[in-house]
């Protein structure tokens, strides 16, 4: 059974169509990345999933229940975009409060803060925290009570590289434990390595929903080949391959997915003229841009 099912979800704010006919699902243990430009509708979609705002049309099932119902809220964790807390409370007091709201033992507050690397600051007021530290308090509260669905709105924004790594590590653990994860992000390189599926929104419409490999196939973007020729042989190599000479030794080629093997054969045939070869597949960045511009045109 799917943890989260969205079908035909539509939402408008006055004349602004924030979401139109969005449909996808998230399975237990699956990490789905929600990508899209600013104002694409990511946060709106998440708020609808949480029952904070209602959809104009469409159906949403959260862990077999209606969004915002007691059953759904009991097993769903949320990390809002730009998460905020009362500045007068300490990190530990704030987490103890959230633990009590979920009917959990407040003594878990310190271990939870330790898990996100905030143990040292636990007794300081949140008003003195940096943005990254507040973000980690937000993450700590999202880990309370073994949630079955996590909805994380730009969870890595404001985090330093070390905290990012530990964040993705924690997420891997949650997914391995069977939690479904829906997160939005602009950090495409991280998303590429750490999520199972990608949903791309563009102006409220869903323009892609697949694994990265499948999206790569569908976009059929060219692969880049960077050839390092032997000194003095660059012109010869460029001529033989009909490529583009960059400098004294580098020749760049781009080839369609279907021609890759044929091209590699040609390069291999050049033998001693070639010193090295680098194969660069289209990045998520390229794929993302492809689907966004395709939708725009």
């Amino acid at each position, binding site marked *: 059974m799917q943890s989260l099912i969205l079908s035909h979800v539509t939402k408008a704010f006055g004349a602004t169509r924030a979401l139109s006919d969005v449909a996808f699902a998230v399975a237990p243990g699956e990490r789905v990345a929600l990508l899209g430009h600013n104002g694409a509708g990511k946060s709106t979609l998440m708020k609808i999933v949480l029952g*904070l705002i209602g959809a104009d049309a469409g159906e949403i099932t959260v862990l077999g229940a209606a969004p915002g119902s007691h059953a759904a809220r009991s097993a769903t964790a*949320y990390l809002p975009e730009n*998460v*905020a807390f009362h500045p007068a409370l300490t990190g530990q*007091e704030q987490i103890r409060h959230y633990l*009590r709201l979920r009917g959990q033992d407040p003594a878990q507050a310190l271990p939870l803060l330790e898990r996100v690397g905030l143990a040292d600051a636990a007794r300081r007021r949140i008003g003195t925290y940096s943005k990254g530290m507040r973000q980690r308090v937000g993450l700590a509260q999202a880990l309370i009570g073994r949630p079955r669905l996590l909805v994380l709105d730009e969870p890595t924004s404001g985090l330093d590289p070390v905290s990012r790594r530990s964040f993705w590590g924690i997420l891997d653990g949650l997914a391995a434990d069977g939690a479904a994860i829906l997160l939005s992000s602009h950090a495409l390189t991280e998303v590429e390595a750490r999520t199972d599926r990608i949903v791309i929104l563009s102006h409220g419409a869903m323009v892609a929903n697949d694994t990265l490999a499948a999206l790569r196939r569908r976009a059929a973007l060219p692969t880049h080949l960077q050839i390092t020729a032997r000194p003095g042989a660059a012109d010869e190599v460029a001529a033989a391959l009909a490529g583009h000479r960059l400098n004294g030794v580098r020749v760049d080629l781009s080839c369609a997915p279907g021609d890759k093997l044929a091209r590699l054969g040609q390069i291999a045939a050049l033998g001693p003229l070639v010193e090295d070869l680098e194969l660069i597949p289209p990045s998520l960045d390229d794929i993302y841009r492809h689907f966004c511009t395709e939708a725009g045109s």
Partner: protein
Amino acid sequence: MSRIFATAASEARIALRNRWVAIAVAMMALFALVLSAAGSGPSGTLGFDRLSVTVASLTSLAVYLVPLMALLMSFDAVAGEVERGTLALALTYPGSRASLLAGKFVAHLGILALAVAVGYGIAALAALAFEARAVAGLAALWRLYWTSLLLGATFLGAGYAVSAWARRPGAAAGMVIGLWLAAVVLYDLGLLAAVVADGGGTFTRHVFPWLVMGNPADAFRLFNLAASGATSAAAGVAGAAGFVPPLQALAWLLLWPFAAFALAIAAFRKVTP
């Protein structure tokens, strides 16, 4: 229930850190001291004990001060969370909106109860220190205490309703001051003017009682002054208290907090974070 207490505990802690508890207690203590000092002249002539006289003046003070404190504590409750951006997360936790509001209510009412207890306690001690027969006024003081809490509870609810309705703390602050002026000051003055102009006619006997009940502050004033028999020491509308049975005033005083809280929940339900 445990969620209500969790919210109440956090709110109480926030109020302590924001110095709200200290401000409320100091304000009540200060006013009680001033009133006790003012009432320390010879009092035997009226036949009342010293504490009963103090209760009469505390009543006219509390009717202004208790609603003001309640409104100042409550106006930020919803609007502040919307502005800080903490409401969205809070609403994704299990528990109803009503229980979130109830948690804040428990904390704020507790602070009010503490501040008023300190103020009235000081007044009682000051009176008892002067004359032993002031014990006779303790019953009136106790009645004043719990009706003050009913009055405070009503204005806490009204403050939450305004807070939810205004959405922004600045607007909510302006609106509660307006509400305070209208409900506590102007309403009473208007009624007084009408009663004086009517001169004990139909208005005073038939319309006036309902208008008094229509305002928790006036119901509070009437119940306490009528019950203590100290109307002679009272000013304003309370002078016409004879036209309203004290038990009727009490019934309304008991009803008002529920009405205000229901209004607050209804307004809060309309708030989208």
